[in-house]
């Protein structure tokens, strides 16, 4: 696409934004359009309102004449686009809903000028302005002179800045503000607070600071889930057992389970009046205790949830070790266990590191399990939630705790990079490798089996409890009479002048499916486009763009949620309370997966195909549409499935973002659990699990193999399948 045609299209888009859709986003929506508060900008200006917006049409008029000619003036287009974007945001921040926010603007507009948040008109104008900016850059020879690439880079960079970077900055500033003033002392005080760092549990019977709690839990979860996952991976890849189906079911189930459902089942089993506890007490006289509430319970729940992901990751790593190395070792006389210890184990290190890191990071951001099973054991994720939602509302404290959590996560990533960065683990080379994998040493195989099979049985029991609990009166109290009651409460349908969805769960279920169905294609589309930009185009700032695209992988969901309500609660960008914010949240949360999947798939498609298309005269658009996208179909479908499932199971970020009209299934279920209605929660969860199972199996049929969690085949180093928390 040429710079001139992009510039013309962008100008048309911006002009339409001025002329047709409502400029502001009033709550009345389009009902009064085109008059009243839903008027487009031209009408507003004609009525003499919002006169501080006059520069926008003038800027567009300034660059119009040049575009009607045959030349695109790069410098001028860049200036026009940048000026329009800057003006929209500056005036938006300067003049807010309660009145003039920036006192600097007061002499010009008066102290009580007000305006609501930006609407669709402003969105169209901003899109057009970004197009002008990109066309200008392309006309000046940037991005290889390709206007399409320029537009994609500008657009995605703008989106990432807006929805990933800006919220982070907001939270940073919120941590430093007390009583509306910037107070560095408060920042230091919040970071160093004893609630975070206290070491009282070492010296006495008191609880420790949340940071230590969080670190201890995350480390234990990381280590144990890696070891369990390794046992499964070795059995699956190296022992002659035909258990592929069972292993895969085990691996997929937790991916499609809302994260805290496992905790409910654990309470039913191991609570003080749980089934196992009662049995042990009756048979062996073991006193019944409340051990499950606290670190042990949360750890157990997290292991159930995250071990399968470690397994998927490590299975890939085990299979990727070239057997010829092990064969060479055994040919030279090494015994089987020596081979394992000196060859296999060292080569597994990157996989082990990745699995540990994943368990660690997932545990850090897990919110549901500590909420249900934590007891007095607080972690950062729950502490942040109650700093926002508790009786003592303190956003500054929440922001500081969120930054501590972010620091822990980024620290873990940095450590991993530092540890692995200096070594080489490549064993799959261009040369063919026809070796046969050595079987496991007998002792090791027995040890793996002794760990893996009881664990599998345990997982099966936990899920059986979930399924059973939905059909009995009150599994928590041991009332096991069969009933449909919970399903009726949740999913009742009535015929009253048409179909009426009376059940308590319908609203949230419909919203969840709608939001998931909308965000999945957006995530996949944006992710694949970004992957293509990053893998196949070279432009200045490529590394920065990649960093920004992958950043949200490292941000715990709780932090995202807090930062979104802080950043998007007031004009000019007011999104809280809408369904749109849920979609946006999911798109940018799940984006790294689409990007990684796309990059990995692109790595398998030879560049000569692109070059052939270019030689035949195909531009970037044609190459992408005709050559790359059809070849990327599996990656696209995997990204779709992943983001759909993840959007249905996420809790930690969206619990801050749901509203009256747009409630989500998981948040609804958390509310039921809080109220002690465990049976209803379990019934609803089982329906969610079935829906997601249908989606995953449908996609499995479509492409022959479920790609969930297998998005990083290029190497175990990549941030791997992101599981179900968030």
């Amino acid at each position: 696409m040429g710079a001139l045609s992009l510039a013309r299209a962008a100008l048309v888009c911006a002009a339409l934004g001025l002329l047709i859709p409502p400029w502001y986003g009033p709550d009345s929506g389009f009902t009064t359009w085109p008059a009243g508060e839903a008027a487009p900008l031209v009408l507003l200006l004609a009525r003499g309102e919002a006169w501080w917006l006059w520069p926008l049409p003038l800027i567009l008029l300034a660059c119009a004449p040049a575009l009607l000619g045959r030349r695109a003036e790069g410098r001028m287009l860049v200036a026009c686009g940048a000026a329009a974007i800057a003006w929209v945001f500056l005036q938006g921040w300067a003049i807010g809903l309660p009145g003039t926010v920036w006192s600097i603007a007061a002499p010009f507009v008066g102290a009580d000028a007000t305006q609501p948040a930006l609407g669709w008109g402003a969105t169209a104008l901003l899109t057009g302005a970004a197009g002008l900016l990109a066309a200008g850059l392309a006309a000046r020879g940037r991005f290889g002179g390709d206007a399409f690439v320029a537009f994609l880079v500008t657009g995605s960079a703008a989106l990432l800045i807006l929805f990933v970077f800006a919220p982070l900055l907001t939270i940073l500033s919120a941590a430093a503000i007390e009583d509306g003033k910037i107070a560095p002392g408060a920042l230091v005080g919040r970071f160093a607070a004893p609630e975070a760092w206290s070491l009282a549990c070492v010296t006495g019977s008191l609880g420790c600071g949340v940071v230590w709690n969080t670190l201890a839990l995350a480390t234990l979860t990381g280590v144990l889930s890696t070891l369990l996952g390794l046992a499964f991976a070795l059995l699956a890849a190296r022992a002659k057992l035909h258990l592929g189906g069972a292993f895969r079911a085990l691996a997929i189930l937790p991916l499609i389970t809302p994260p805290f459902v496992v905790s409910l089942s654990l309470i039913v089993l191991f609570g003080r009046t749980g089934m196992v506890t009662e049995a042990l007490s009756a048979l062996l006289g073991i006193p019944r205790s409340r051990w499950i509430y606290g670190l042990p319970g949360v750890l157990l729940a997290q292991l159930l949830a995250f071990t399968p992901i470690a397994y998927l990751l490590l299975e890939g790593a085990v299979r990727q070790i070239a057997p010829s190395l092990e064969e060479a070792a055994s040919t030279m006389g090494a015994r089987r266990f020596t081979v394992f210890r000196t060859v296999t184990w060292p080569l597994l290190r990157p996989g082990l590191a990745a699995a540990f890191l994943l368990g660690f990071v997932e545990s850090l951001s897990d919110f549901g399990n500590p909420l249900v099973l934590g007891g007095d054991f607080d972690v950062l994720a729950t502490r942040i939630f109650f700093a926002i939602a508790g009786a003592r509302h303190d956003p500054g404290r929440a922001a500081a705790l969120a930054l501590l959590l972010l620091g822990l996560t980024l620290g873990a990533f940095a450590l991993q990079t530092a540890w692995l960065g200096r070594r080489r683990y490549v064993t799959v080379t261009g040369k063919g490798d026809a070796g046969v994998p050595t079987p496991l040493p007998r002792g090791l195989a027995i040890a793996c089996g002794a760990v893996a099979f009881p664990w599998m049985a345990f997982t099966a029991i936990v899920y059986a409890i979930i399924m059973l609990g939905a059909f009995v009166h009150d599994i928590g109290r041991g009332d096991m009479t069969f009933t449909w009651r919970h399903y009726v409460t949740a999913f009742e349908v009535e015929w009253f002048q048409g179909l009426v969805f009376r059940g308590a769960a319908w609203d949230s279920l419909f919203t969840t499916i709608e939001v998931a169905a909308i965000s999945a294609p957006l995530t996949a589309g944006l992710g694949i486009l970004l992957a293509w930009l990053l893998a196949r185009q070279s432009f200045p700032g490529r590394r920065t763009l990649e960093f920004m695209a992958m950043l949200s992988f490292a941000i715990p969901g709780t932090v995202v949620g807090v930062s979104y309500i802080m950043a998007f609660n007031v004009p000019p960008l007011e999104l809280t309370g809408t369904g749109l914010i849920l979609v946006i949240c999911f798109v940018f949360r799940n984006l790294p997966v689409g990007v990684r999947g796309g990059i990995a798939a692109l790595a398998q498609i030879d560049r000569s195909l692109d070059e052939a298309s270019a030689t035949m005269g195909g531009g970037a658009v044609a190459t992408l549409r005709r050559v790359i996208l059809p070849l990327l179909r599996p990656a696209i479908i995997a990204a779709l499935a992943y983001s759909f499932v993840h959007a249905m199971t996420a809790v930690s970020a969206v619990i801050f973002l749901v509203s009256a009209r747009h409630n989500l299934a998981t948040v609804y279920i958390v509310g039921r659990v809080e109220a002690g209605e465990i049976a209803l929660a379990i019934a609803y969860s089982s329906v969610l699990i079935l829906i997601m199972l249908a989606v995953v199996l449908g996609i499995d049929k479509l492409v022959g193999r479920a790609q969930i969690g297998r998005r990083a085949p290029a190497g175990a180093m990549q941030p791997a399948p992101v599981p179900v928390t968030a």
Partner: protein
Amino acid sequence: MTSRRVFAAALFAGALAALVPGSARAQGQLTVYCSVQEEWCRPMMAAFERATGIRVAMTRKSSGETLTQIRAEATNPRGDVWWGGTGDPHMQAAEENLTVEYRSPRLSELHDWAVRQAQQANFRTVGIYAGALGYSYNVPELQRRRIEAPRCWADLTKPEFRGEVQVADPNTSGTAYTLLATIVQLMGEEPAFTYLKALHRNVNQYTRSGAAPARAAATGETLVGITFLHDAVTQKVNGAPVELVGPCEGTGYEIGSMSIIRGARNLDNAKRFVDWALSPEAQAIGAEAKAYQLPSNRNAPIPPQAPRFEAIKLIDYDFARWGSAAERNRLLARWDREVRAAAR
């Protein structure tokens, strides 16, 4: 193919538009923040819709969370009415000027306690039900341990209840704050904190939600759960082996309240809702939803299972003083410092 794509695109765009605020907002809307349990919220809203034809959008959140939300939205309110939930946050909202004064014509039909509370709040909130604080214990567990049945607040600090009492955290729950304020009013502040420290040794867990201890006592996860008595009644009606105790020293109570949010976009409908919610018919819905509070309208039927106020010794609870933000923060800070941080 092309037309199918166009259709799919249109469908997608339509679905996207449906998520945007109020793109299809009809006349006759009302947004209600509901702070009682889901089972009560839903039939209330459905009954109001049926009675008036006004469409209700309802969110259920705890009263603490709702207050937070109303505060955050103060410059741009999205809710119209805040219905239900313990009175303190409503008083706090009134104090912070987040809610508006409204004198319903039905005020004259209400019990004295409800009228008194409305006066204390300058008519920015009005009581819809009341419930007394107390505790419930699990009978089989008690018998198994051969412990004498507790009757008073003082019994709960006995050594045999070590690790057997559950109560919510007053930082997150209005119920637990009511306990804190009740004990302080009952005993005086210094003895109250001595008592709370002694109680702390027997508490096995401070839950986040106020009603959770009732559920824990019902399943036997704990022996004693301190909650509002109506929460325990709900468990008992469901068949749980619990006994309810209205402590002998006397106890505090909550007045579940209702407020109209300042800047409500549907103010007229909000007033209609308030008038309707104070009517005997609307207040009878609670019992059907297994909520056994005492309704505030004198003519509303009292559910037979509801703990009668006559049978319980109630203190003269000063809602204005203990509901104020300053007192609340002071008490909570002291509780955090002296009780929560103490060794068990």
